[in-house]
């Protein structure tokens, strides 16, 4: 089995971290908007992660991950430089349609900042005027500001608590951009479903085309299980092979959010089980450290 070696690791906060994985073939083939499915180890589950960046010269792809559940927390612990992944397949999904839009607003909410970056960069390279709108809960969670400033003609930051930029959600930033520019052709919004829903509603009255990148639960990612099915108008599409980008004004976000919750009980169980085994592991380590060095043991006792 191939290694998928990690060549870089960066932590943006205590929940968000970046992994750069060596995969020359995938770096050559990747396009903005595509994702990979990753398995940490043989007992692991398959999870989709958007490709946040790809370097065709270095032969690497970059993933930005938020530690929310068992697998992403376990990866946060285990994935250090030099380690590998048990499985990584991609690039999956239809590449984002980088249209001939002349003026584009690229909106990233929280973790959505990472996957929207390659699209913003691609629009810039295609000659569009790019307005970047990034949203974070507070100033300490901001990352990749410099990368965005490098490819955006205008740059708006929004924080929930007002510690940086505008106080408010990214919809505030979108409203400001729309107020300043009457000729916006397209909006690309990536982030938690509730945020993408809000962005779609913010642009709907102005009838601006809004593309979103959906993140339903996935297993295979190749279109054979239907677990990632989403409602688009009166049609049903599979996010893994018909997406992951869709017209935000047609997406049934409520259905997406309900379906994302269908394993909450099992997710809770998995997290509890893992946290318990981590605690037990720590206790074993402490006990064996105490056993092997009596001097330290007596120091601990004191």
């Amino acid at each position, binding site marked *: *089995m*191939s290694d*998928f070696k990690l060549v870089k690791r960066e932590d943006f906060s205590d929940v968000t971290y970046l992994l750069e994985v060596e995969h020359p*073939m*995938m770096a050559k*083939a990747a396009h903005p908007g*595509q994702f990979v499915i990753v*398995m940490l180890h043989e*007992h*692991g*589950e*398959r999870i989709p992660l958007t490709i946040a960046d790809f370097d065709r010269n270095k032969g690497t792809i970059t993933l930005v991950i938020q530690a929310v559940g*068992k*697998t992403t927390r376990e990866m946060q612990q285990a994935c250090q430089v030099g380690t590998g992944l*048990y*499985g*990584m*397949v*991609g*690039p*999956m999904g*239809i590449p984002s349609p980088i249209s001939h839009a002349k003026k584009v607003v690229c909106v990233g909410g929280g973790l959505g900042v990472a996957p929207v970056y390659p699209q913003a960069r691609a629009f810039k390279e295609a000659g569009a005027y790019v307005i970047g709108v990034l949203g974070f809960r507070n100033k300490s969670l901001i990352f990749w500001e410099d990368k965005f400033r490098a490819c955006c003609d205008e740059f708006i930051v929004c924080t929930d608590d007002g510690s940086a930029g505008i106080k408010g959600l990214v919809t505030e930033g979108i409203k400001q951009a729309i107020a300043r520019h009457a000729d916006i052709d397209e909006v690309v919004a990536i982030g938690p479903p509730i945020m993408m829903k809000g962005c779609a509603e913010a642009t709907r009255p102005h009838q601006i085309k809004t593309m979103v990148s959906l993140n339903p639960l996935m*297993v*295979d*990612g*190749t*279109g*054979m*299980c*239907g*677990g990632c*099915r989403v*409602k688009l108008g009166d049609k*049903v599409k*599979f996010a893994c*092979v*018909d997406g992951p980008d869709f017209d935000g004004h047609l997406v049934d976000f409520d*259905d997406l959010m*309900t*379906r994302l*919750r*269908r*394993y909450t009980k*099992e*997710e809770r*169980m*998995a997290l509890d*089980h*893992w946290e318990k085994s981590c605690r037990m592991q720590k206790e074993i380590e402490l006990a064996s450290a105490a056993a092997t060095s009596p001097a330290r043991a007596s120091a601990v006792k004191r």
Partner: protein
Amino acid sequence: MREQDPQARAKNFEEVACGYDLKDALRESDRCMLCPDEPCIAGCPVGINIPGFIEKIGEKNFRAAYDILTDTNLLPSICGRVCPQETQCEGVCTVGESLEPVAIGRLERFIGDTAIKEGWVNIPYIEPARFKVGVVGSGPAGMACAADMAKAGCDVTVYEAFHQPGGVLRYGIPDFRLPNEVIDAEINNLRKLGVKFECNTLVGRLFTIEQMIDEMGFHSVFVGVGAGYPTMLGIPGDSLNGVLSANELLTRCNLMRAKEFPNFDTPLPLGHRVAVVGAGNTAMDAMRVSLRLGADKVYCIYRRSRKEAPARAEEVHHAEQEGIEFHWLTNPVAVLDDGKGSARGMRCIRMELGEPDDSGRRRPVPVAGSEFDFETDLIVYAIGTNANPIMGQTSKLKLNKWGYIGTDENLATSVAGVFAGGDIVTGAATVIEAMGAGRKAARSMKAYLGIRDSKLPYISQGVDGAGRLFGIDVRERNFARIRVA
């Protein structure tokens, strides 16, 4: 054949059919009359020399039986378990005209399993042919094609998108019908033939078929990616939590080992009252898997009658024995919402059989006023699949109007050097049909590459125009080497 008791086996994933022991095999092989007609050979989609290997069993020469079997079929332990023999070899058996047909499938399985236990593998001397062949998809079609091309001396690489090879054998067929160890053993035999397996590779996206031929040095490619895109019913409530395709249930359970959650991370949809819509082999698998996962009640909802059910006879029989409740001539109308986005039940309508439709089967028509509701918390759709869209999205292969890859009678596609077979060409079918397609494509690929089958007499095909001189093939007039395999 000895089988696990239905009550006991409904709680475990061990094989239901326990397999023959030596006594059983000898007794059964004696029943074969070695009749002169040999209808069984024609009844087999890959043309195994059935009387030949049965005769060897009778002589207690199991190695020779294995040799004869593997001459045509390199995966006997798999076919013996999952072929619908009742419609193939056993269905035309001469003995079966008056008595029970010879249990050919069970004898095949006996030999295959003996070979695995003894570690036999048949690696003939293979003359390297300097051709590089790519196989897309490591399911039965790809495996069969890879085996034949490897035996012809080609350098074969099989690409698989999942992290483990086997295709539908691995993710679709549960352990109690086809254990993973058997799949691993057969794949190892292919590795010993020199076949390379590259998993975690999504052909079409990581690189395209055209790139394989133009840039990666492949001389010929076989596409066997299957037709796994599941069909949904299209009734209200389809996307409620608790409704899933059989493919998703089976992939979670078989490939991702969700039945061992939380030791394996993939979660499992646990249902107490499970309704499976459909009556094909996939539906039977989904029902019996649900039972083993701990369901109190499992229902089968099928809009036609038991006679029309497409599943293998043994599977329906086993499912009935295990206590699954069959509702024939019943069609779902809607999935009922519990108000919180999850399924709480299903509304169905009773059907009756009317005139035959264009498949020849009598068309079911709803009986007015016969709607009824029942409680379920897990609904599984096993009503058929469509072509996988990725090949169509990423290559210039011509598709037919249903999205399947168009091929001629030699399984050649619209791109030179690229051949296709199995479900992606015919639509969802069986493992043995896919293997037959893989072998047929291999014959065409060998012809395309110019590899001559040394067993066939040499009849000059000739090359048109400049290749012939006074009607005599140019190659017959010189001592240039002809590639032989």
